[in-house]
């Protein structure tokens, strides 16, 4: 079975008035790096939160490996939210222990190797690290899991070019080959070379799901310029 994620008739309405997703249908297969692209407020983060079980759908459902979001799916989904979620008084070493305890697919040696290559001391407390370093620690923890699905919410927003290269490199060299990486971004040109597929969503609707090479071949332009065309105001 190559379907990893099934999104069926998914609708999310906040507070009975604000519709974030409307009857969305999607299938995500294994072994891909997929860009979830859309302007701000298009429903990207809502979809991601539902996949992670942080929000309940108003209607419809999502299935990951055939499971609804819950303990079974969470054991195989590695999620990088937009925010850093650490308890600031914890040491880096304690975080590694935490992940080792809770996620069976976590590889502490891999995390230690990556931390060492960035000269991050395991005995440092999170609160003594800079914002950029915290984000890198979080990425390292997330990418040190042998997950089935990596969900990265805006992994390169607001970082400098060197950090961006580091992040992209870390994603490419660490994701599990049979797994899929779903990453949302609005900085398409920075990331389109690493994508197999793109999903465009707009106002909670699916606009397009296609491979990057198809877009380049058929449209004769980059995903970034095609995106600008599709979402032109």
């Amino acid at each position, binding site marked *: 079975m190559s379907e990893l994620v099934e999104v069926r008739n998914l609708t999310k309405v906040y*507070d009975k008035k604000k519709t974030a997703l409307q009857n969305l249908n999607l299938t995500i297969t294994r072994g891909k790096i997929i860009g979830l692209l859309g302007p701000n407020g298009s429903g990207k983060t809502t979809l991601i*939160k539902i996949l*992670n*079980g*942080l*929000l*309940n759908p108003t209607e419809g459902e999502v299935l990951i490996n055939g499971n609804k979001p*819950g*303990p*079974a799916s*969470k*054991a195989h*989904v590695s*999620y990088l*939210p937009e*925010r*850093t*979620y*650490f*308890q600031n008084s*914890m040491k880096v070493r*304690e975080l590694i222990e*935490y992940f080792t*305890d*809770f*996620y069976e697919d976590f590889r502490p040696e891999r995390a230690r190797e990556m931390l060492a290559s960035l000269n991050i001391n395991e005995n440092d407390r999170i609160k003594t690290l800079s914002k950029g370093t915290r984000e890198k620690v979080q990425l390292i923890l997330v990418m040190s899991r042998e997950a089935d699905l990596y969900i990265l919410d805006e992994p390169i927003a607001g970082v400098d070019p060197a950090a961006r290269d580091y992040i992209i490199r870390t994603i490419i060299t660490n994701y599990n080959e049979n797994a899929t990486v779903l990453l949302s971004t609005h900085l398409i040109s920075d990331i389109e070379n690493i994508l197999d597929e793109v999903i465009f969503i707009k106002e909670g609707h699916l606009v397009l799901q296609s491979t990057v090479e198809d877009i380049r071949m058929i449209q004769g332009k980059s995903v970034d310029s095609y995106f600008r065309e599709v979402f032109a105001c």
Partner: protein
Amino acid sequence: MLGKLIKHEWKAIWKIPAILIGALLVIAVLAGLTFISPVWRSGMGGLDVLTVLVWILFYLSIIGVSMGNLLYLAIRFYQSMFTDEGYLTHTLPATSHQLLISKIMVMTVWIFLSMVGIFCSILIFGGMAILFLQPEISIWNMWEDICREFEAIGMLGLNLVSFAASIIFMLIASTVNGTMMITGSICMGQMVNKHKILGSIGAYFAINTVVQIVGMVVMLPNMLKTRFEAPIGVFQMLASIYWGMGVLCVLVSVGLYFLSEYFVRRHLNLD
């Protein structure tokens, strides 16, 4: 999974409550040391400034431990469940029941330890007062006196074991209830979209008021029908109040637990 959750929850919060309780015990000893002062034996009135200051400090520390630990536990619960930390908490491969139970258990233990700490600090203070002011009284004699008193009451027909059981039951139930009041009101406060903390505080007072009123309605008839003529009557009344309060606490706690779990499972909405 529950074991791991409890272990990490414990590691995350033990330090501050333990330090506060430790500090209280040290201050209790300091306050007890004031009884060494010769002022006490000279029979002169008036206390020196230092003594008064240490006593005030002791008094404030007791309040600090009871309120401070509650507040700290409430804040930690809120942070780990409903702020950015929630992104990690709620993506652990655990059910909402496991998450809640682990947190409730660790909180309850710390609220209980805080009470024990306060009790011990008062014992230390009182014990030192007796030790320094009236060294001729032996603690052992006092204990025998107390036992004799209880035997006398026992001869009146009071079952001491069941009376003690009522107290212990009430203490445990009200400790759990204290935890559930905090967790329940914080979970319910999340329904107020813009002002979640204010919502939690509001929910706390609302639940508290409801519980008080229900408590009064349940207790009052019981208290009124007590016959005060017999000395045994007072103990019977107390025991029945304790049992009643304990049962009420258990019922409220169970209700709040299921309400909290429902809100966490169905209405989680992290910013």
